[in-house]
């Protein structure tokens, strides 16, 4: 019998790594039988392509910007060579395209366990308020600015400082309407309108990896506190925590969202009130997801099982104190592998 075959995207592992490699490590750790892993890479230079014991086969993929049809054709081609049971897309930018072809993939016998399109839309920063208005999930109060004449009125509704954010990127702290004005102009010229002003909340920030069953149930969640940061503010080290209040907030939010599949939540606990606020929802695993394996809550493997239609029992909160520290190392790669990827667009490590 052929082994269970799982395709995973996102194999770049730079200083701001994609989740592909840790997701594959998790699957390998979770699967009782050896499975076959297909790496779907966007670049011949993605370091994950060359790592021992990660992907068995690697295929270069067209960028999502080329559209759903092109992606489907490529996957159908790969599926013809190496039948795929499950695909786990791990990058934000590709998810909308994968959702578009979900039905066609199902027809091919390829399954995914990903959020719904409507859930993806909830992430839009300009619409984040709707989480509170429509679902009752606490978010920092925010307002979208489309003209600077709105700025003097901020005083009525917000306590300074506030965060001033671009629709997609950039966030600055502002201590007065005058500072908001400055950031507003800068963000507008760089990213366009609207600009979002958000109440600044003083407190502790937590990062959570979670998987929802799509029916309001939480399959499992591993909250962690970042202990080491890169200069981009990404976690380079962290430790699991177990705070019943936070756990309740996570469970409640995942239930209200009826979230399906993996996500990374950024949650703030306000110092003075102890209240929790949702800061961000990313519809994919974080790059530190291997911590969930360390904590005995293998969420990538659970996602594979859910994709296969198997039942997964809800997991108890993990024990606190599991620590991860990331490191990078320089691997020696063969030019022949690089050549295979650049000229043929595929690399097969199993047949060697």
């Amino acid at each position, binding site marked *: 019998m052929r082994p269970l075959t799982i395709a995973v995207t996102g194999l770049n592992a730079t200083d701001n790594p994609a989740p592909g490699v840790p997701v594959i490590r998790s699957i390998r750790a979770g699967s009782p039988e050896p499975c076959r892993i297909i790496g779907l890479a966007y*670049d011949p*230079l993605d370091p994950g392509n060359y790592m021992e014991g990660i992907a068995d086969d690697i295929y270069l993929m*067209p960028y999502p*910007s080329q559209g759903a049809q*092109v992606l489907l*054709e*490529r996957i159908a081609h790969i599926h013809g060579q190496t039948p795929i049971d499950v695909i786990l897309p791990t990058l934000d930018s590709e998810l909308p395209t994968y959702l578009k072809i979900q039905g066609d993939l199902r027809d091919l016998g390829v399954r995914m366990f990903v959020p719904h399109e409507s859930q993806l839309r909830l992430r839009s920063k300009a619409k984040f308020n709707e989480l509170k208005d429509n679902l009752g999930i606490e978010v920092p109060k925010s307002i979208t600015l489309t003209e600077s004449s709105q700025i003097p009125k901020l005083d009525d509704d917000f306590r300074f400082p506030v965060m001033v954010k671009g629709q997609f990127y950039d966030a600055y702290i502002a201590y007065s309407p005058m500072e908001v004005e400055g950031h507003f102009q800068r963000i507008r010229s760089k990213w366009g309108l609207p600009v979002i002003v958000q109440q600044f909340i003083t407190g502790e920030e937590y990062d959570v990896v979670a998987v929802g069953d799509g029916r309001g149930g939480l399959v499992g969640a591993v909250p962690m506190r970042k202990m080491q940061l890169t200069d981009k503010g990404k976690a380079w080290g962290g430790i699991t925590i177990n705070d019943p209040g936070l756990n309740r907030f996570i469970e409640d939010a995942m239930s209200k969202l009826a979230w399906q599949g993996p996500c990374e939540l950024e949650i703030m606990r306000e110092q003075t009130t102890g209240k929790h606020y949702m800061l961000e929802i990313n519809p994919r695993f974080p790059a530190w997801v291997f911590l969930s394996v360390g904590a005995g809550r293998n969420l990538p493997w659970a996602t594979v099982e859910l994709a296969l239609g198997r039942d997964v029992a809800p997991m108890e909160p993990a024990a606190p104190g599991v620590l991860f520290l990331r490191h990078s190392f320089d691997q020696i790669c063969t030019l022949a592998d690089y050549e295979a990827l650049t000229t043929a667009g595929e690399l097969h490590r199993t047949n060697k």
Partner: protein
Amino acid sequence: MTKQAYEKPTIIKHTGGLANKFGRGISRRTLSRIDGIPVTSLIEEHGSPLFVFSEHRIRQRYREAYRAFSLRYPKVQFSWSYKTNYLDAICRIYHDEGSWAEVVSEMEYEMARRLGIPGDKILFNGPYKPKPALARALDEGAKVHLDHYEELYQAEQIAKEHGKKYPVSIRVNMDTGIHPRWDRFGFNYDNGEALDAALRLHTGGHLYLDGLHCHIGTFILEPDAYRQAASKLAALAKEVRNKTGMPISYIDVGGGFASRSTLHEQYAPGTDSSPPIDDYAEAVTSALLEAGFGADEMPTLMLETGRALIDDAGFMLTRVVGNKRLADGRRAMVIDAGVNVLFTSFWYRHDVLPVIDRGGMLEETVVYGPLCMNIDIVRPSVHLPPLEVDDALVIRPVGAYNVTQWMQFIRLRPKVVLIGTEGQVDLIREAETVDTIKHLEKTPPRLSARSADE
């Protein structure tokens, strides 16, 4: 020894992240026929560049859109937005399908009248309607959409002069959650100005409110914005009804639905990211149905959809004029159609498809138009196989706005042909000649006396 098939020798350097594009996963696309007609035969007969429109697609898209709305709402009327494409043959197809005309100047008004469209089937929009044009439109029963108070006063003045009472409508702008907000046109809803204007119109005694209009922008990717627009207009209609006792006869949500084109800054292609027409229809009609109009007071839903109906019925056929290497090593190509005739290249990442692909490596290419102007760029970057001089390319979708916004600049404007539903190819606009431009000019005799070579 049999010789191998030849392909121009090529070497492409792998630059970070780009080598991928040479992988097998990249689909190579060509387009050799439009509605079954070979592109090369169209070019042989009519030359290049050449605009080609497909009657089949025009009718098909129109019917899809009409269906999407009329299945959901009892009274629906489309009006063809002339500025999107006012070639007579094209307008006639829409009118034949049942569309009225939507015009934004006296020029467009006259174009519609010449095609036999009666005044009462013309919607007259725009911030400037010269007094004689306004008077004519009111007199001919056109649906005049007032843009500002001065125009309202002027319409009132005309009504007084004519001793008549005219139905008019007002254009309304509002916050629908999208940007930019087109608040320079019409009366603002959110600050109460629109209601004020509607009531003011009644109290004058010479005008009465026939309908409410808005056009929230163009290439709007968010159907929900239309839900908000429709529900605000419905709320306004009901408020006017309460205050004056007069129901209005129509609500016009304008145009602006995204076509399947792709903005330069968009990541995914428009064929994936533009919402289907059903989503817009659902948003607009559900807002109107939820507004709770009495059964006998349901306003007609008017639409002025432009680009979404015609964009992908239009193609530009062009040929390669030259291949180049830029100083930084990038591949570049000059084609015979530039931004003079593909104005929309400034905003959209049009598909550039070779008619044949002889194989060979795809390479990132800058596609330049033929103008001696630095801004003449049709695509800043597109992956193309090796192409030879005279090889044909198809650029699409270019049906919206190009044959109205094209410039008579440096080069003459090319022919436009229409492929009929039976596959017949008809010339619908002749190529310009130097006379087309020069016959309007007058040279003072004192300058024409001397010729250049004296």
